[in-house]
């Protein structure tokens, strides 16, 4: 069963080595720094997406949240408060607010699947972002936001440090707290969780809030990097996030997935995109390649289920 846990890491290593050997400028400092900036965006979204996907959910709205939170942040930045912290808080809280709406509508509205709810907020958040910004990017972010999105410390991208901290927090939440244990339990069987006395509704809402906060932080990075709140930012980001989590071994059936492997999945996507960019391969091919990798990852999930069944049967027979 070990292959299931380390499989994504081995795959990432293979892709990284291939890129290093075949793409001439891949290993240059400039490119690796650039790769770090790109990857931090995907990792950030994947962390939040992981939490909802473990509960057997999905959040399609995160790309739109990146746009909306950047725009709300830029509105605060335009005003008299230019200290940075209020802008950061606004951006992150916008994400949390959309997450809260997702969770509450999904749970309290007794909607059978979060797909529909987050599809709605996917267009609503984008629409509000366009309305608030009149369709154009609002340029000019405070220094703090620019540093968080585009700064470096000794050549190392600051957003990577930010994302590493977020990953550590997500890891502790999922693996070390009762909340995390319950999130996994709900993903395996919401009905069993209810019978065990776990407050399923509140937990699900909190999962979408966590995902919204992660999307808010991603909005912060994007706003800092582009020095603007753009209503068209984050387009299709949700697909990369979902793909990263799936490639990292999580299951659409819920209950599975780790922070480590979600980060690995996000890195895989970033390395593929980056190296194909460097090789001047048409962007359209990136879509094809990532699609193929998703299919392979899902096939791994099916294979794992099969192996588990076999193990159980063999053990019951006493032959293992």
């Amino acid at each position, binding site marked *: *069963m070990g292959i299931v846990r380390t499989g994504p890491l081995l795959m990432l290593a293979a892709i990284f080595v291939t890129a290093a050997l075949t793409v001439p400028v891949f290993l240059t400092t400039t490119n690796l720094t650039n790769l770090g900036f790109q990857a931090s965006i995907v990792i950030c979204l994947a962390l939040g997406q992981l939490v909802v996907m473990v509960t057997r959910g999905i959040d399609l709205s995160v790309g739109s949240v990146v746009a909306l939170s950047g725009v709300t942040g830029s509105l605060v930045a335009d005003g008299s408060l230019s200290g940075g912290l209020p802008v950061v808080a606004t951006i992150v809280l916008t994400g949390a607010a959309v997450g809260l709406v997702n969770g509450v509508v999904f749970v309290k509205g007794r909607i059978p699947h979060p797909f529909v709810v987050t599809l709605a907020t996917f267009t609503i958040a984008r629409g509000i972002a366009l309305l608030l910004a009149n369709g154009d990017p609002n340029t000019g972010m405070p220094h703090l936001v620019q540093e968080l999105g585009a700064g470096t410390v000794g050549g190392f991208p600051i957003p990577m440090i930010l994302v590493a901290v977020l990953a550590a927090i997500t890891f502790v939440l999922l693996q070390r*707290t009762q909340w995390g*244990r319950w999130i996994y*339990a709900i993903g*395996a069987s919401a009905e*069993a969780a209810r*019978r065990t006395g776990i407050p399923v509704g509140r*937990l699900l809402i909190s999962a979408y809030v966590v995902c919204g906060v992660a999307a808010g932080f991603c909005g912060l990075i994007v706003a800092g990097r582009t020095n603007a709140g753009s209503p068209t930012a984050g387009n299709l980001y949700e697909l990369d996030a979902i793909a990263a989590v799936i490639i990292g071994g999580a299951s659409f059936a819920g209950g599975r997935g780790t922070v480590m492997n979600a980060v690995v999945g996000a890195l895989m996507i970033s390395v593929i995109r980056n190296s194909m960019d460097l090789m001047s391969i048409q962007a359209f091919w990136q879509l094809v390649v990532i699609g193929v990798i998703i299919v392979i990852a899902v096939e791994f999930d099916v294979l794992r289920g099969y192996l588990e069944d076999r193990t159980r049967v063999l053990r019951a027979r006493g032959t293992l």
Partner: protein
Amino acid sequence: MPRSKNSSTGILEVVNASKNFGAVRALDGVDFALREREILALLGDNGAGKSTLVKVLSGIHTLDEGEVLIDSKRCRFHSSVDARAHGIETVYQDLALFDNLSPIANFYAGRELKKPSWLGCLGLLSEKRMKQNWAELADQLKVNIPEPSEPLALMSGGQRQAVAVARAVAFASRFVILDEPTAALGVRESGQVLELISRLPSAGVSVILISHNLEHVMQVADRAVVLRQGKKIGEVEATPENRTQMVSMIVG
């Protein structure tokens, strides 16, 4: 329905219980009483109302009419948490287990031990303490799970059943309800679970056992209550002499 006034009243009584699901009358004026340290079997064919009764007693469903009394006091359960607060633990037919978690995590599901309690569910899990406690309890209950930290998905039917029963037994202060605890098990595994059940009364726990298997019922139960189409048909001592009577009451 005749209301039998038994000389020894039970500590858990169900009085005139009725429950409808749309046009279907799942329970129709059912009465019975569970006495202290007794193993009471609930018998009946499919659709007789056994599972509905179990769900009422474990707080999943509420009754349309009638009531549940514990120590002659009226109780109304709005959730499984309420039922547990009254000392009732249930082992469901589908076990209500989590395949992706370890047996230990399943055992503690919903009542994990954690360090700073003021943090609520953000408290850190005390994995070490849970592991130690599990080891002691598994030893006491003679439950043998060779690798209690691996996901439950890899365990056999008997091991899963053992985890579910151990969880109920360990946390039940007064009552355990078991819905078909031996249905999915082989002969040897059934024997182990039945032995576990038969030890419960001596630990002060009263048991309601639902089973299709009359052999198992006669082996461990004191009395049997028979339901058919939501009604109580009768009640007999669960002895081999009464076997034919039980069968005829079940099939009607």
